[in-house]
């Protein structure tokens, strides 16, 4: 009887351990996600401070301009003469500032939208998603890191909605985009392509950076492996990326690289997710 009970207990124990491992894995992914966001914060602050600076200044100038305008119009009315040319100049200035404010607000809301896509909990479930929207939102975040030195091009194919975890896909994209930016010394270019491949969608992220050394290629998806300096790389980014693509989405990830010419990462995700529950 004892012999018969032992394997049953051991199986229970294994299930419990497996659940614990999965929970720990999820926590690690979550912690990594927050950490990568933390690394982007100074870039995000910079990208938000510029439009905020403009809006604050414009608000002050608009208020002062309207006071001046009221004064000009009041004086003209009292004199019974048309308003002076200076009044029209003020109207044009304020019109220009309103246009700047619109652009500035759109810029800020784009970054906030990217943050929401990346961080929101209500998108943690499997659902059909327009990956182009996820890519565009993620580019707003990664752009905060390297916008001024790296040009980003998109080449979007005609792809269907994809059943996936959008928040996790956003993390995959952010990891690959930040890596691509870090691989470029000085100025360079990143191209994001999407293609429909008969039941699958392929996302390719190419950079014209330094490329991956041949001796590193076999290990880049291994947890803890990094070639980045201490404080920049954790060695978790590509391991978590691989896990999200391969284990969670039953997809594929690979890369082509040429030292000195650049790297392209390819992520392939099935349009219909093979499972229904969260792993």
């Amino acid at each position, binding site marked *: 009887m004892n012999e018969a009970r032992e394997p049953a207990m051991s199986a229970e124990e294994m299930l419990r351990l497996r659940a614990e491992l999965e929970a720990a894995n999820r926590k690690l992914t979550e912690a990594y996600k927050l950490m990568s966001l933390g690394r982007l914060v*100074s870039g995000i*602050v*910079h*990208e938000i*401070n*510029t*439009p*905020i*600076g*403009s809006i*604050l*200044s*414009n608000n*002050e*100038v608009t208020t*002062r*301009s309207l006071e*001046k305008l009221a004064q000009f119009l009041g004086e003209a009315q009292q004199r019974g003469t048309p308003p002076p040319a200076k009044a029209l100049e003020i109207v044009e*200035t304020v019109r*220009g*500032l309103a246009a*700047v404010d619109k*652009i*500035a607000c759109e810029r800020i809301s784009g970054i906030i939208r990217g943050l929401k896509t990346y961080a929101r909990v209500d998108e943690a479930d499997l659902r059909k998603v327009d990956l182009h929207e996820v890519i565009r939102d993620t580019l707003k975040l990664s752009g905060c890191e390297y916008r*001024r*030195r790296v040009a980003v091009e998109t080449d979007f194919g005609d792809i269907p909605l994809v059943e996936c975890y959008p928040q996790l896909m956003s993390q995959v994209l952010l990891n690959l985009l930040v890596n691509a930016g870090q691989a470029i010394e000085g*100025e360079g270019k990143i191209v994001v392509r999407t293609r429909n491949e008969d039941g699958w969608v392929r996302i390719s992220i190419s950079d014209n950076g330094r490329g991956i050394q041949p001796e590193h290629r076999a290990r880049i998806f291994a947890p803890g492996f990094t070639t980045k300096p201490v404080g920049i790389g954790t060695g978790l980014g590509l391991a978590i990326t691989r896990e999200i693509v391969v284990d969670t989405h039953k997809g594929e990830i690979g890369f082509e690289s040429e030292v000195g010419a650049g790297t392209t990462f390819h992520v392939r995700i099935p349009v219909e997710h093979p499972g229904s529950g969260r792993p």
Partner: protein
Amino acid sequence: MTTNTQPAVLIVDDEEMVITSIRAFLRLETDYAIDGFTDPEEAVRRLETHPVDVVVTDYLMPRMNGIQLLARAKELQPEAARVLLTGHADKQSAIQAINEIGLYQYLEKPWDNAQLLLVIRTAIERTQLLRSLSEKIAQLDMAHSNLKDVQSRLLRAFL
């Protein structure tokens, strides 16, 4: 370069919105001549041909950063005051700017208009005083060499 002319301000930022906002503010509050460039290389070309009193520049820009631009400004127009207006709150760049290019002021985005105006106004005063001082020194040098000339002619006449 003459003093007491219309003060000239050069604003360089790869964000057009920053130039538009600062230009609108300075036009409302001052009679300064304001030039704005989103391309730092174009700003350098401007500095090669036009005297300015103060250069206000962003730090992170494509092709040339703010410190590189201000270093060129220092070579081309050493009297012009150099101001860094940056959203990139990086102590290292501030220290580098102060030590290497004799920065007049380091301002951070989002900026405060009143503070910006105060900085630009005092920077212009400083530049114009420096230029006036240079002119006076040049005049003194000229007077000195004239005096020496007169002295040597007097000596020749009497000896």
